[in-house]
């Protein structure tokens, strides 16, 4: 039993880190553009499909991940230019409707490109097999995915906290008007924020490909989880989604031991539970 719990715990942390990468992207977009990105799930699916396309050309998995990030980032740029911006002055309701319409378009394009049958891909030879951690045995790929996700999160954190670009981003989130008044190109900043956030969603999709495969419905389910993670983390908090992502992953994995069928619903129960005690989310301020 203890063995099972620790195995699920490690598993949960790995999945939670993928959630964290995804929701961190959502959090950046929410912070900068002040719109809940309804296309985030579709971008995640896009990343998985792009990664699949690259590795089926016999290219290395690493290139697949890079392509997933870049492809989704370009899609994010297109969304910003041709969907969000044209309806920008009407508040966020038109924006999120346009994003939802765009999500429909992306998902249908994926179905046209790769068909309705789900795709699966086993990780490269180097990442197959298991790793003995002493307390428990972990599939190598799961270990890789967690370490890689953690690295990505740290890198983005450094980008935001320790670079000039990051200072602009933080300024843009805190005081958009002042930032513009200081002569910073906020339009460009919003575009790059959208690209970064979308890219993270794509990267999460690429990372998830060897675990869950690529299916047309993966985006919709993931969107729900990403929203929950963001709400639990606290909407005002840029980094809350990281801890919340891991929490959601762990709770979900541990629930699988007791009641496998409830593992999806538990996420939403957790969210409502958290909100009853901390309405602003775990790390939100208000």
């Amino acid at each position, binding site marked *: 039993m203890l063995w099972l719990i620790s195995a699920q715990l490690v598993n949960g942390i790995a999945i939670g880190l993928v959630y964290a990468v995804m929701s961190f992207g959502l959090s950046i977009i929410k912070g900068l553009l002040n719109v809940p990105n309804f296309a985030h799930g579709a971008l995640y699916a896009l990343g998985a499909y792009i990664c699949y396309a690259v590795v089926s050309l016999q290219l290395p998995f690493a290139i697949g991940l890079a392509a997933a990030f870049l492809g989704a980032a370009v899609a994010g740029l297109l969304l910003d230019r041709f969907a969000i911006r044209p309806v920008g002055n009407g508040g966020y309701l038109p924006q999120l409707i346009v994003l939802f*319409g765009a999500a429909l378009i992306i998902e249908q*394009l994926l179905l046209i490109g790769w068909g309705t049958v789900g795709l699966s891909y086993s990780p490269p030879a180097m990442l197959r097999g298991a790793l003995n951690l002493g307390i428990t045995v972990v599939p190598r790929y799961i270990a890789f995915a967690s370490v890689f996700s953690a690295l990505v999160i740290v890198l983005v954190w450094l980008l935001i906290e320790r670079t000039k670009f990051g200072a602009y981003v933080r300024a843009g989130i805190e005081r958009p008007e002042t930032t513009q008044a200081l002569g910073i190109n906020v339009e460009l900043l919003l575009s790059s924020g959208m690209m970064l956030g979308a890219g993270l969603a794509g990267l999460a999709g690429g990372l998830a490909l060897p675990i869950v495969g690529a299916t047309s419905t993966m985006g919709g389910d993931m969107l729900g989880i990403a929203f929950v993670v963001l709400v639990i983390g606290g909407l005002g908090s840029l980094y809350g989604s990281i801890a919340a992502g891991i929490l959601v992953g762990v709770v979900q994995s541990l629930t699988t031991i007791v009641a496998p069928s409830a593992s999806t619903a538990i996420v939403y129960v957790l969210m409502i539970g958290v909100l009853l005690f901390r309405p602003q989310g775990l790390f939100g301020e208000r």
Partner: protein
Amino acid sequence: MNADGEPAGVSDAGVSKSGPHLVSIAKVACVIAAVAVLPLMMPINIATEIMIFGIFAMATNLLIGTAGLYSFGQAAFFGAGGYAAGFLLAHGWTSLPLVFGFAVVVTGLLAAAVGLVSIKRVGIYFMMLTFACNQLIYYAAYSWRSVTGGEDGLAGVRRPVLELPFVGAIPFDDNRVFYAFTAVLFLVAMAFLVRVVESPFGLVLAAARQNTRRAASLGYPVAKLQLVAFIIAGAVSGIAGALFGMLYRIVPIDSVHWFGSAYVVFMVVIGGTRSMIGPALGAFVFIWLQGLLSLTWSRWPLLLGLFVVATMIFQPDGLLALLTKRPAWLSGRRERSRS
């Protein structure tokens, strides 16, 4: 909350009375004529579906257009109404008042629960919370197989029977009779919701949409009134969901999926949020387009997505504004000045 766009809902209430009676009588006549002509233009079940989603969209517009509460979880109530009514109908209880009463009570209570959790959160937070509650209810319906049929949907739903004292029992097995019944409910729902919007209660909701803090500091219990609006919208959506289950004699699991919530917000916004005719028009365009597109191409949601994006970019005020803008002098409505 940012008070975007034009003031909705209250628009007709405070306008000067230069022949408002004629205009509103003409409007009512147009709506009734449209409802009467609709089944001649298309397959009867599509027409019935337009009526059903018209009810759903108008109920949602009470939240979006009047109260400014952008709920993305209304399909939860639509689906729950379908399950509540469908469960009774599939188990032999076919009395019409009982079935609809049960659907209204169940969805009203559910809306109260969701509203209590989410109503005090504003803006994007509210939207995401209603969305997440929708997901929770979806998974609950998905797992509760003994009642909802889970993935397969709740099958074997029969249509109710209306027992009238002197007329006798009226069954709704004929699709034309069922259309007539749905159309009557549609008109009743429209009259009811217009009344709600124009009532003092609706005016306070609209005031709170434009400036929540000011409305609250005038002494109005804003959160309580918003909760009441949320419950009304949920219960009316539940009626629409009940009708949907009766129409196809099955309640599919998709009827509680959050996609339905997003679609109904589309209908409201592409139609126009400023009156109750807008959402009805949006439902008409959406359902008609969906029926048309799904016949032509299996990837029709792509075209639907393009339509939605194009509508939002080129006609952000909704399709109704397209019809009403040109003959502004005809309707005798003055251009409103923003204060």
